[in-house]
C-alpha cells in the first residue's frame, strides 16, 4: 500500500474542538465547551467573510424584544465526521418571540460569546424579513456532511 498525501479527516473535526494550537494558545477560562450566540443583522449591513469579531454595527436595534448580542445557540451535539467532512450544527432552532424588528434583516451572525473578544464564526444569509409583533424562527439544517451548518471539507 502506497503512502498518500492527506490532511487527516479527523484533523478537521479536531480543529473545531480546539485540540490543536498552531500559535500561542488563548487563555481559556474553562475546559467546557464555549457558548456560541446568533445575532440578527439588517439587510443594509455589510457582514461577511472579512469580519473578525462580533460587533453591533448593522445589528437590529435593541428594541421590540430583540436584545443586541442575540441569543445563545443550543449546542448539545459535538462536531463530528461524515466520512471526510467535519460538521457541526446547533442542536435546536433559534427563535425570537414577540419580536418587532427595527428594520428589514437578512443575515444571522454566529460568534463565540464565551471569549471576551467575541470571535466571529460565520455569517448566514436568508430572504429579507421584517417581523412585527410576531415570532421569528431559524430552524437548523440536517447535521451531516452534506448540509450541516458549519462544515470543513
Amino acid at each position, binding site marked *: 500500500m502506497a503512502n498518500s498525501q492527506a490532511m487527516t479527516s479527523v484533523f478537521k473535526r479536531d480543529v473545531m474542538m480546539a485540540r490543536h494550537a498552531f500559535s500561542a494558545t488563548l487563555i481559556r477560562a474553562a475546559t467546557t465547551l464555549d457558548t456560541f450566540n446568533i445575532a440578527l443583522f439588517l439587510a443594509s449591513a455589510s457582514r461577511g467573510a472579512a469580519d473578525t469579531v462580533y460587533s453591533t454595527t448593522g445589528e437590529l436595534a435593541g428594541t421590540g424584544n430583540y436584545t443586541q448580542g442575540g441569543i445563545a445557540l443550543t449546542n448539545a451535539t459535538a462536531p463530528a465526521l461524515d466520512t471526510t467532512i467535519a460538521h457541526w450544527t446547533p442542536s435546536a432552532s433559534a427563535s425570537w418571540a414577540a419580536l*418587532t424588528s427595527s428594520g428589514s434583516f437578512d443575515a444571522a451572525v454566529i460568534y463565540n460569546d464565551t471569549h471576551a473578544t467575541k470571535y466571529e464564526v*460565520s455569517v*448566514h444569509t*436568508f*430572504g429579507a424579513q*421584517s417581523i412585527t409583533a410576531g415570532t*421569528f424562527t*431559524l430552524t*437548523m439544517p440536517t447535521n451531516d456532511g452534506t448540509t450541516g451548518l458549519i462544515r470543513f471539507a
Partner: protein
Amino acid sequence: MIEITRDRQAGTVILEMVPEDLLQKKETLRDDAVERTRMVEYCWKTCPGTAHITGLPDSPSHFCDFHVHRSARIDLKVGLCASGAIQSFK
C-alpha cells in the same frame, strides 16, 4: 386572540390583542435550494391595506404596516462549507 400592532409610526409600536375573526390572514411560502420560508401575516379585515404600503422600506411583503402581526419561520436547508487542498511538497 392574536397580538397585532394597532399603530406603528416613527418607531412606535402599540400592541393589542385582537380576536382572530376580526383579522385577515395571509401566508407566503418561499421554497428554494437553501431555505424554506413561511411567513404568516394578520391584519384588520377593515384595514385599507394598500394605502399603507407606499414608502415603508421595512415592509417587503405585507398588506399593511400600521396594523399587523407578522411572523416568519426559515428552515435552513444547507449551511456553509470551508474547503481547500493541502500544499504538496512535490
